[in-house]
Every structure is written in C-alpha cells, then in structure tokens.
C-alpha cells in the first residue's frame, strides 16, 4: 500500500440531518496529481477536512503512505502527513509572512524565539520555493496568489509530501493559474503528491493524472484523466447524459438601439474607457486581476465614484458613485464576490432577491411570492422562499444573487464573475439566464476570468493596465484571448 500517499475508506460524515459523505473512499497514488470534482455540496470540502484531521469522520478510516492516520487531537502529526490550502485562507492576516510560515513553531525548536534567525529561515524557505515576497510583509498585504504560495511553501516546509488544494484557482487570474500549475508540475517532479479540487474541468486535464468524481455525498467513479472525456466527466458529476451546453448566443437578434453609453470614463485603476451596448448585446470584459476590469464594472454600477467621464442609460445620464441612482436608471448588477457583496446570509431567499426593488412598504406575502417566482425562474434548489440563503450551496446562492440583480427588470446588466465557484451545471443555467435576458432586449456587460462566461458574449474587450487594448468579435480563439489578457497582443 506504500504507493498511496493517502487512502480513505468507508468514510461517512453527517451534519445534523445532512449526509455530507456517504460511505465514500479515495486513493491518491504517491507522486500523482489527483483531481476531485463534483457539484456544489457534493462533499469535497468535507472530505478535505477529514483528510487533514480537522474533523473526525463518523465512520471510516484514513491512511497516509500505508500508515493509519494519527488521532484527531494530535494535529502536529497530521501536519507532517498532509498539508492543505483550504477554500478559506488559513493564514493570520495581521502577522508577517515569516511568522506565518513558522506559525506555532516560531522558536524553531529552541525555546525562545529569535526573530533574526526566523527571518533568515523564512528567506531561505521563500527562496527554495521561489516565492517573491518579503518575509516582513504582513500577510494581509499579499495578493491571493502570493498568499496561496506562502501556504504551499509552509506546508512543504513542514515536511509533508502530500498537498491538498481546495479550489485554489477560484480566486486567481489566468497567468497566476498558469504559474500555479507550473509550480505544481515541478513539485510533482520532486515527488510531491497533490489532491486538486476545482470547478474548472479543463484544469483537471491540464495538471491531473487521475480524477475522482463525487455526487450527492457518494463516490461515483475514479479513473485516469486520459480515459474520461469532458462529457463523461460531466455526466458522472450530474448523473445525466449530455455534456455542457453553454449557450453561445450567436443566433441572438441584434439591434442598433443603444442602451448603455459609457464615455471616457476614468476611475480607480482604469482610465478613459468608452463603450456602448445595444439592445440584446452582451459585451465581455477580460483582463488580468490588475487590469481594472472589476473597477470599471463597479464604477458603472455606482459602487465606485468615477473621476471623469459619464454613464447614461437610454440616453439619460446616471449620477456616478450612487448605486440607488444606477438602479433607478435601470442598471442591475451581480457584484464581484457573493460572500462579500452579494448576499445577506441570514436573510431569506425572498428577502435577498427583493432587496433592490423599490417601494416603501414590504408586504411579507408579496415578498414571499416574489421569492417563489425567483426560485422557479432561476432554478434555485431550496426548501422555499423563507429559507435563509446561508442554507444554500454555493451555486444556488449565486442564482439568488442573479435573481436580485434582475428583480427590478433592469435594461442593463453588469455581471462580475457571475459563475465563480459554481459547478458546471449551475454555470450552464446561469449563463442561460444571461442569454435569455439578452434575447429579451437587455444589454449586458460580463466581467470574467472564465472563458466559458465570455463565450456568450457578442464581443469581448480586453483591458490591460486600465485601458482597452483589444476587441474581439465572436469566434476568438482561446490562445489569442489569453495572449491579449497577458499583454502580449501584437496589435
């Protein structure tokens, strides 16, 4: 059994009446990169918490390199076997990089902490793994990418040769993802084993050799990646035949009637951007994390104040930096991060979905009815309109955000990362909504790092350092778009 870096067998885990894992197993061969995929709520993160000793399973066993896992209380022993970059960051933001690297072992075995030595050791470590950050930097000042690298370096420095990455790419832009993959490959060459979780199936093909699929808390299949086509994979995840059908929308009727006009808009991290969208048009905005594309979209919706330029909807100017004004003018928005700006988790689906619609009075029955409509129209899996959104899985939560953005029947949609962290099937239905809205004569601006999201667009603008550097019509190729995003465009 020594050939397996990690083995789990017969693992069952229950949260109250939710069965999160139902007698599942996984075998991760030493030295490989193993993908774990499944829909939102399939139980992936729960398995991770069991494989890292953060939770004890209700039943089942775990072994590393043939050795049974240590008792849950002995976290030090777990850390030598397995390291993890969780969905949520496990760093301490207000402490320095050096200290985070050696957290809970700052004394380096010497009793007293010697800060100079600690810093030196941190430098060495960062150099070894080629992480370009200063050891004195506070972790709160790092980028997501840098933070993840610090976490990986820390994990490897503890001596574990098995690393779990739970949706590491969800928050990274294209080039950063590429850099992460390069690093994974080179570490794999040095004998490190990876368990990799992602909703981006193409990534599985890029870095993994084996894939395991979970569905509804159960193990469905484990196979070499080379033997699973994308449609097979999706079928395994969803239990339905037929691959992903992201609507491309190339048969959408077009119109010349301008809805959204942005002229010479400047603001945080972008300047002098002009753009017009006509009825039924979907415009994509692509670019790296520092391209200013998010800031531009947020400015259009009034979440940020513009420093110059103007926005108008149906010819009427919209006051900048004023969300209510934007809503009034007919702009709806799915904000960048649903946890941060999208939802009030403790409130019900109905309340979240109707939060942006005007009116002095709120009649609970009317609100509930609106909630039910939203659940039906956006295919939200929920017990009812009164259910708090905190009970929903990620994908379903995202649909509620979409419902909120569309509640006032806006004529312009600003969608930022609309499918982030959402499984393939939910992604399909969300993009279907975008297409359907465009067909109803709405204009939409889709800001995304995901190529799938951009495929529904009629044209894609690429931003680089706050300016539009290229525009693509339909039918672009992945490579040319990525090159443009990375600023390597020839034009």
């Amino acid at each position, binding site marked *: 059994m020594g050939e397996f870096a990690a083995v789990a067998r017969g693992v069952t885990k229950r949260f109250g009446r939710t069965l999160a894992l139902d007698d599942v197993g996984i075998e991760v061969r030493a030295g490989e990169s193993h993908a774990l995929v499944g829909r939102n709520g399939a139980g992936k993160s729960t398995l991770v918490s069991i494989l890292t000793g953060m939770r004890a399973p209700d039943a089942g066993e775990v072994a590393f390199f043939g050795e049974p896992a240590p008792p849950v209380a002995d976290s030090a022993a777990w850390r030598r076997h397995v390291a993890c970059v969780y969905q949520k960051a496990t760093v301490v933001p207000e402490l320095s990089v050096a200290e985070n690297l050696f957290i809970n072992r700052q004394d380096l075995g010497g009793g007293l902490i010697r800060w100079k030595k600690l810093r030196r050791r941190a430098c060495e470590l960062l150099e070894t793994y080629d992480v370009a950050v200063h050891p004195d930097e506070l972790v709160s000042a790092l980028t997501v990418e840098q933070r993840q690298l610090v976490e990986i370096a820390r994990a490897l420095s503890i001596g574990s040769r098995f690393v779990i990455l739970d949706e590491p790419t969800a928050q990274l832009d294209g080039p950063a993802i590429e850099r992460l993959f390069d690093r994974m490959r080179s570490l794999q060459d040095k004998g490190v084993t990876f368990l990799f979780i992602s909703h981006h199936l193409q990534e599985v093909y890029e870095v993994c050799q084996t894939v395991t699929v979970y569905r509804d808390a159960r193990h469905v299949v484990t196979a070499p990646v080379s033997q699973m086509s994308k449609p097979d994979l999706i079928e395994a995840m969803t239990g339905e035949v037929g691959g992903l059908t992201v609507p491309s929308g190339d048969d959408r009727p077009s119109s010349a009637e301008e809805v959204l006009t942005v002229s010479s808009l400047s603001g945080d991290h972008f300047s002098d951007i002009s753009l017009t969208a006509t009825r039924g048009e979907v415009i994509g905005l692509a670019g790296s994390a520092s391209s200013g594309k998010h800031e531009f979209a947020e400015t259009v919706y009034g979440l940020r104040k513009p420093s110059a330029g103007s926005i108008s909807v149906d010819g009427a100017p919209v006051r900048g930096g004023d969300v209510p004004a934007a809503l009034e003018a007919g702009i709806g928005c799915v904000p960048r991060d649903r946890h941060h700006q999208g939802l009030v988790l403790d409130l019900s689906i109905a309340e979240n979905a109707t939060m942006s619609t005007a009116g002095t009075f*709120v009649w609970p029955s009317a609100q509930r009815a609106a909630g039910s409509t939203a659940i039906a129209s956006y*295919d939200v899996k929920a017990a009812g309109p009164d259910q708090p959104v905190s009970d929903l899985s990620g994908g379903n939560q995202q649909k509620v955000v979409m419902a909120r953005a569309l509640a006032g029947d806006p004529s312009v949609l600003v969608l930022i990362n609309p499918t982030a962290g959402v499984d393939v099937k939910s992604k399909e239905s969300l993009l279907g909504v975008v297409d359907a809205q465009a067909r109803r004569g709405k204009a939409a601006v889709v800001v995304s790092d995901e190529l799938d999201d951009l495929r529904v667009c009629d044209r894609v603008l690429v931003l680089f350092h706050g300016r539009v550097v290229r525009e693509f019509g339909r039918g672009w190729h992945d490579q040319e778009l990525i090159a443009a995003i990375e600023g390597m465009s020839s034009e």
Partner: protein
Amino acid sequence: MTKAMTEPVAAPAPGKQKFRLARYQDLALVPVIVLLLVVGAVLSPIFLTPANLVAVLTQQSELSLLVLGQAMILVVGKMDLSLESTVGLAPALAVALIIPASSGGLDVGLAAWLALPLCLLIGVAIGGLNGFLILKVGLSGFMVTLGMLTMLRGLQLAITEGKSLIDVPESFLYLGSATWLGLPAAVWICVVCYAVGIFVLKYLRAGRSLYAIGGNSEAARAAGIRVDRVVWTVLVIGSVLAVVAGILMTGRLGSVAATQGEGMIFQVFAAAVIGGISLQGGKGTLFGALSGVLMLGLVEQILRLQGVSGFYIKASYGAVIILALIVTRFATGQKQE
C-alpha cells in the same frame, strides 16, 4: 430558462426546520414570561393585580425605550454605549438652560416650554455626532460611544457641578408623571414606540434595510441601500429614544439626578441580548427585545416582593442573565459570538 435538473444539495428537511425555528424565535421568551407570571402569582397574592403589573411596566418603561433604541442600533450592526449618559445629560442641559443659577441652572433663562423640544434636539445632536465620528471619521463605534459616555456624563457634572436639578419646569415633569386612561403616560409612550418600531422593522423597506445592513453591509450597499444614511438615522433615533427615557425618568423622580441613568447600559444589553438581538448585527426582533425587558422586570419584581434583600437582588439578577443566555443557547442550538 434551463430545465430543472439540479439535485437538492442537502436534504431540505434541516433547512426547513431551521427557518421554522427562526420564525418563532422572537416568541421564545413568551413561555418564560408566562412562567414568571405564574410563579409570581403563586408566591405573592398581589402579583397579578393590575397595580402591580402596571408598576412593573412603569419601572421598566425607561429601560424599554433604551432597549428599543439599542436593539435597532445592534440590528444595524453598531453599538451605542453613550445612551445611558444621554438619559442624564439631555434633561440636565435642557433644564439648566431654563432655570436660574440660583437653582443650579446656567442663567440663560430660556422659556420653560422650550425644555422639551430643546431636550429632543440635544438627543438629535448627540446621535448625529456619534454618527459623524463613526461613519465619516471612521472610528470604532464601541470606542467612540465609550468616550462619549464618559464625556457626556462629565458634561452633566460640569454643567450642574454635581447637583441634582430640582427646579424642573412642570411641563417637563408632565410626561413622566401623568396618567392617561388609567395607565401612566410612560407606559403608553412605550407601547406606541414599540408598536411603531415593530411595524417599521417588519413592513417598511427602510426598516427591513436595518437587517440587511447588519447582516452584511457591503451587500446592502451593493443592493442599493444607502447604508450610511440609514445607520446615521438609527443612531439619531436611538439617542432620541434615550432622551425620551430621560424625560420620563425626570418626571418620575421629580428632578434630574446627577447620576441619572448611570449603570443602565448593562441592563440594556442584557435585556436586548436575552431578547434575541445579536451583538453581531442583523438578527433579532423588537418584540423579542421587549420580552427581554419584561422578563428582567418580572424577575426583579418577584425578588423584591419576596422580600429578598436588596443586597441579593443584584446577584440574582446577574445569575438570571447568565441562565437566560444558557437557555437561549440551547434553545437555538447555535454558539454565540
């Protein structure tokens, strides 16, 4: 739209159960209150007499207004410790501006009828200042209002030189001492304030927005709620309610005591939290808060009627707070933060 084809993520049952519980959570204290009424009646024959119950209500009226204000402030995700000092300062300052120096006033000599409006205005000013420091300057709400608590209490001392003001204009005493339709005016005022508050927080968009802001202010902002404006308004309303409490207390005691309101803030938090208001914001109802106030009032009254010496009342009161927290903790099954 795409066909429904997603599998339910989790068994829907626990979700359903959770929101059912949540809906009735604001009624959680009702059985406790009934129990206290029964216990009170068994222990003391006069407990259920109208006079006794009215006494409980009257004694809790000032606290209840403070709790009303604080509850809204907590729901919106802030905190105002200075409410208890507003209870004393606003009446003291308003009265001092009216009465002559010989009675401890400031010798400004404003007309007596100005006392009430002036007092309310002072409340607006205090709430507004707190809002400014928290929202515009960006200071920690807990700390600002802690500083304000000290400063306002100090201001009252400075204005009155530590004196209680006895020569209070009649008009100012009226509300705290009048009886309307057989019930003290103070009780009517509380009832009306709570009724309005409960209605607003349930049926008005502006009221609902408090929950959105307290639950996730960024999301509220992104949903088009004018967060700062709402928070500011709530802080001002909280201060004004504290002023009203101060006016009632002045009327009830016939003077503005130098220490008026001192120590109340602890009870305010206790009542609000026991009543289901979360210190984290975004959760709880005013009805719940009110039942927290009533519960504490009944406990106190039972102890007092039982002839429990005043020295033991405070300890029992503290024990009841902790007990209530434990009960709430297990009733809701959620860890508190």
